[in-house]
């Protein structure tokens, strides 16, 4: 059976907000190391994966590996019934078809219990190779969200140019063009933690769909910073840390120039 106790319902709420736009149903794979999820969007362009480590929970017990097929819309509805500071306990029997959620208010005077029906979800699991990326950029997550929002006005896609001294996002469309450049080391809000850092092996230039990137920025509330990892002609990795519990990663296939092949 699975039993996991988390002190802040808000974390789970934010996590769900970060994935529910991209996928509708997903399997939550539970094992003794923690809870994993991997799911692709319908059109197989983007993939979202998160890990909540067992150590991150106040209490965690999972006797045997099992996966919970969950409709994300339904889970979101149930989580709306929890207060942000509530303590959440997830419970599920191995062969059961329910996920039980218990919400306890911080001062323990209100306890609510919900059961969510599980589903059989036939999903493909992708093997993601460990990749050494040519460029790894850490920047403020709210800045990244703003760039995506701003450039969406101009075009459907953004060109990301990463060189030694900075990272440049540019877009051009019918009404005109625009670009945003962030310099290495600079911080947008005088907070050293969110300053832009670049680890570069080789300069890269890639084109991505802004629609998907904007979708990924739904994870912004989870973390102050975001890491973009890029190499030529491979999917972009966008990673947000989930406090000290784990991470959420998004992969996005690049747009490829026509080579007529």
């Amino acid at each position, binding site marked *: 059976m699975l039993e996991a106790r988390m002190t802040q319902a808000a974390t789970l709420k934010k996590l769900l907000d970060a994935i529910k736009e991209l996928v509708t149903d997903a399997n939550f794979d539970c094992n003794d190391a923690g809870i994993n999820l991997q799911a*692709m969007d319908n059109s197989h362009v983007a993939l979202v994966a998160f890990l909540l480590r067992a150590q991150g929970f106040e209490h965690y017990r999972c006797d045997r590996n099992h996966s919970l097929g969950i409709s994300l819309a339904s889970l979101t509805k149930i989580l709306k019934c929890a207060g942000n500071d509530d303590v959440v306990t997830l419970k599920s029997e191995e062969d059961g078809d329910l996920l039980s959620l218990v919400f306890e208010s911080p001062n323990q005077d209100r306890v609510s219990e919900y059961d969510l029906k599980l589903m059989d979800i*036939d999903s493909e*699991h*992708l093997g993601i190779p460990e990749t050494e990326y040519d460029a790894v950029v850490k920047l403020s997550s709210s800045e990244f969200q703003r760039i995506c929002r701003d450039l969406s006005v101009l075009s459907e896609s953004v060109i990301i140019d990463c060189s030694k001294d900075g990272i440049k996002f540019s877009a051009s469309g019918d009404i005109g063009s625009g670009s945003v450049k962030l310099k290495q080391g600079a911080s947008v809000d005088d907070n050293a933690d969110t300053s832009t850092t670049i680890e570069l092996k080789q300069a890269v230039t890639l084109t991505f769909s802004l629609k998907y990137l904007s979708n990924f920025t739904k994870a912004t509330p989870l973390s102050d910073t975001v890491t973009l990892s890029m190499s030529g002609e491979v*999917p972009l990795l966008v990673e947000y840390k989930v406090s000290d519990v784990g991470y959420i990663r998004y992969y996005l296939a690049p747009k490829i120039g026509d080579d007529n092949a």
Partner: protein
Amino acid sequence: MGIKGLSKVVGDNAPAGSKENDIKNYFGRKVAIDASMSIYQFLIAVRQQDGMQLTNEAGETTSHLMGVFYRTIRMVENGIKPVYVFDGKPPTLKSDELKKRGERRAEAEVSAAAAQEEGDNENFDKFSRRTVKVTKEHNEECRRLLKLMGIPYVEAPSEAEAQCAALARAGKVYAAGSEDMDTLTFGAPVLLRHLTFSEARKMPIAEMNLEKTLEGLGMDMDQFIDMCILLGCDYCDSIKGIGPGRAVSLIKEHGSLEKVVASLDTKKYPIPENWPYKEARELFRNPDVLDPETVELKWDTPDEEGLVEFMVTEKNFNEDRVRKAVQKLAKHLTTATQGRLDSFFKVMPKDPLTATKRKAEDDGDKKGKKKTPAKGGNKGAGRPRK
């Protein structure tokens, strides 16, 4: 045309084999389309309000051009790269079937003429659709149109479906696009149906997956071919009294057509006198196709002036519309296409533990809802456990 009742057999016995998808989800995919089949469809379906085919001033039919032009653009707009495959010489085994079709067409022509005489519009419409025949000129005009549009096409030595299947199997294209179910029998790993339907019909694309179909049926490829022959194909007659249900169970029980034949009670199920099932099987296994490796597919920029000359001047299409459509085509053929994750990351084999568990569950509920038609589609992928 195709295999009798195969789509129902797959739907009933291997629901995982087919799913429905929006056309948008196929961007970046190359698809080999059975041209002759599509042209035939267009000639039937693309009509004026009074049921007559579209024609130019000289009275030449233009329904097929309309279809090929706009439906191709629709595919390109959705990021699909089509390549058309034209039929070559039909295999000799098909001559019986073709003769029958000819007779049926002749009958329909008689009925159509009679209906017209009586002023029975509804019946005239019905029968005149059955008289449709794709002529050499139709094919030739479509080739010319495709060339001007910059869309590649392939001349199959024999059956177009078989060539489409071969291209898909060799990885030259992602899927074969045809309505003919025998494309699967020819070994196409993925078959897309309804690809060339009109947008107005809001018909989702039906994607048939050969591997999953075989898995669902519990057969290997050879048994699948044998089953298709039993169901009834274009190349030989089927046995009277053997329908879809029995065909599946017979092959499952005996494993091959030879053993089925040996065990059949010939009084109850008379085997047709001339029944070249071995030849038909050979045709499905090793059809006459061009080596896919020698086929080069190249998408060019469309020739706007050439298209205007052909479509507007010769065929009386509206110039504005043609120009706009060509610009759309050119734009989509040149802009960067969105890549797909599955071309970078490989699908992992399923965890055997969960897979076996699933299967057991599947068997359980199959009994309960055997009669309900399989609902494909992504929404069908998740179903309540109880």
